[in-house]
């Protein structure tokens, strides 16, 4: 919050809404905003069981990029990046988008081939991408160790100059303020515990604060989506895992871009204040406790210190975790369900922050028109039974 005026009004839930959105992360808030702004649907409530944007939205490492291999992924993430670039103007509030560039390191011959292929695929899709050799990586990131002696030496990197980070809390608050101004009700401390049905149609939700009728119900409950759909007997190809991040003490500026490595599995950027922000992979096992295992921290810190020897002097300040839902192909599920009036936006796994404006934009369009937005169409639930290419984590250019 800035100044004295709250960014959004505290509301009591009403008996019913045209659209009820479950979950007030970035995706839920953006969806509500675009429903109101682009589709004129303003009778919308966003129900949040905790506090606004206190889930993964408040816990991520804030990396934004669109250098995905698969055309459909490149399509939706680049759509999001385009929206990011105009977001401060659109919402009239700062989100501190910092296009400081993202490097994805390659450490093996296979990595190199995959990376060069991805650069070419990105360019064919009109996405800025370059292949850098180790010397060029060193020029951008002077503190990185590019000597061949490393267990996993740096053999090069892909580079997306337009990629970067944004301040996640500010993003959420900007969407919240803009949605509130358009009449959307943002209701915290209101857990959805079940659904009201008429036959195969969902007509409302049960909540900790009583039943709420709804013309349409849209799930943006990252990490907990299948817990909700279980109550309808709808099983989804989702597994929920803890994902953690950590920050160090404040340091002098040492790195002014974002460096990611899937092979040794660490991501790092430096916050404006000076903390090094480090992320890694999910815990292998399912979990809903918002703390990850120490073994993951150990691996990520070891990888970070090997790549950036100066990090060995940094004190670890704090670690935390979120719960992400992962699909078999590391791609989201967006669209309709076998229940009329129930829409899914889930499965963004470890990478949904970068999609926030794009996900909200195409999801709002999908809900408003009761058919998938063209950019969302490849991400329908039916792809798993339709013979589509599945089990392609590499295609999404993410590791888990």
């Amino acid at each position, binding site marked *: 919050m800035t100044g004295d005026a709250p960014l959004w009004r505290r509301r009591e839930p009403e008996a019913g809404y045209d659209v009820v959105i479950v979950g007030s992360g970035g995706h839920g808030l953006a969806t509500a905003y675009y429903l109101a702004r682009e589709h004129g649907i303003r009778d919308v409530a966003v129900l949040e069981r905790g506090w606004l944007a206190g889930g993964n939205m408040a816990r991520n490492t804030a990396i934004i990029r669109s250098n995905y291999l698969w055309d459909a992924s490149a399509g939706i993430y680049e759509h999001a990046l385009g929206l990011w670039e105009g977001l401060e103007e659109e919402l009239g509030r700062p989100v501190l988008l910092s296009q400081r560039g993202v490097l994805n390191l390659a450490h093996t011959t296979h990595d190199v081939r995959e990376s060069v292929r991805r650069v070419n695929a990105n360019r064919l899709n009109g996405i800025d991408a370059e292949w850098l050799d180790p010397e060029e990586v060193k020029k951008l990131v002077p503190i990185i160790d590019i000597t061949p002696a490393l267990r996993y030496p740096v053999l090069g990197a892909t580079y997306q100059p337009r990629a970067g980070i944004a301040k996640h809390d500010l993003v959420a608050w900007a969407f919240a303020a803009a949605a509130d101004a358009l009449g959307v009700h943002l209701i915290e401390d209101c857990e959805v*515990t079940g659904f009201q049905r008429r036959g195969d149609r969902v007509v409302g939700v049960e909540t900790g604060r009583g039943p709420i009728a709804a013309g349409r119900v849209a799930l943006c409950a990252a990490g*907990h989506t*299948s*817990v909700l759909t*279980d109550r309808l007997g709808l*099983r*989804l*190809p*989702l*597994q*929920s895992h803890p994902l953690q991040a950590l920050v160090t003490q404040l340091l002098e500026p040492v790195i002014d871009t974002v460096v990611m490595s899937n092979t040794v599995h660490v991501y790092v950027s430096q916050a404006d204040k000076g903390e090094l922000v480090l992320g890694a992979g999910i815990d*292998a*096992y*399912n*979990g*809903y*406790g918002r703390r990850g*295992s*120490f*073994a993951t921290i150990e691996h990520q810190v070891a990888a970070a210190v090997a790549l950036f020897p100066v990090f060995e002097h940094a004190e670890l300040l704090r670690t935390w975790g979120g719960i992400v*839902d992962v699909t*078999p192909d590391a791609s989201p599920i967006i669209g309709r369900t076998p229940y009329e009036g129930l829409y899914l936006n889930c499965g963004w796994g470890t990478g949904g922050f970068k999609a926030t404006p794009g996900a909200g934009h195409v999801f709002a369009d999908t809900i408003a028109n009761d058919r998938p937005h063209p950019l969302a169409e490849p991400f329908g639930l039916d792809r*798993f*039974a*339709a*013979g589509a290419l*599945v089990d392609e984590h590499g295609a999404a250019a993410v590791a888990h």
Partner: protein
Amino acid sequence: MLLIPCPWCGPRDEAEFRYGGQAGVAHPQDPWALDDRAWADYLFVRDNPEGWFAERWFHTSGCRRWCHVLRDTVDNRIAASGPATTQAPDPGTGRGGGRADPSSPATAPTTPGRRA
């Protein structure tokens, strides 16, 4: 950090194990009898409960055998474990699949079943 009770080696650090997901998912007896949706279900859909979960772990750095473990996915309490050749523990009752700690009586979950 999980302390996973291997039925053969006793309680060991999670770093020694590989995760195998949901326990008791049998290969369809007659795959040709399944339609696309049922086949996709078998391939891609697993339970994902917030609460007790019967799962498989492989003791990679130990005896290199698979076991079943009954774990609460919210607070990581482990209620039971047993050889993978036995019946997977029942998330509803917490029974079956042997005991969590071979040296002490079985600790059945106090609040079995899915969390609210």
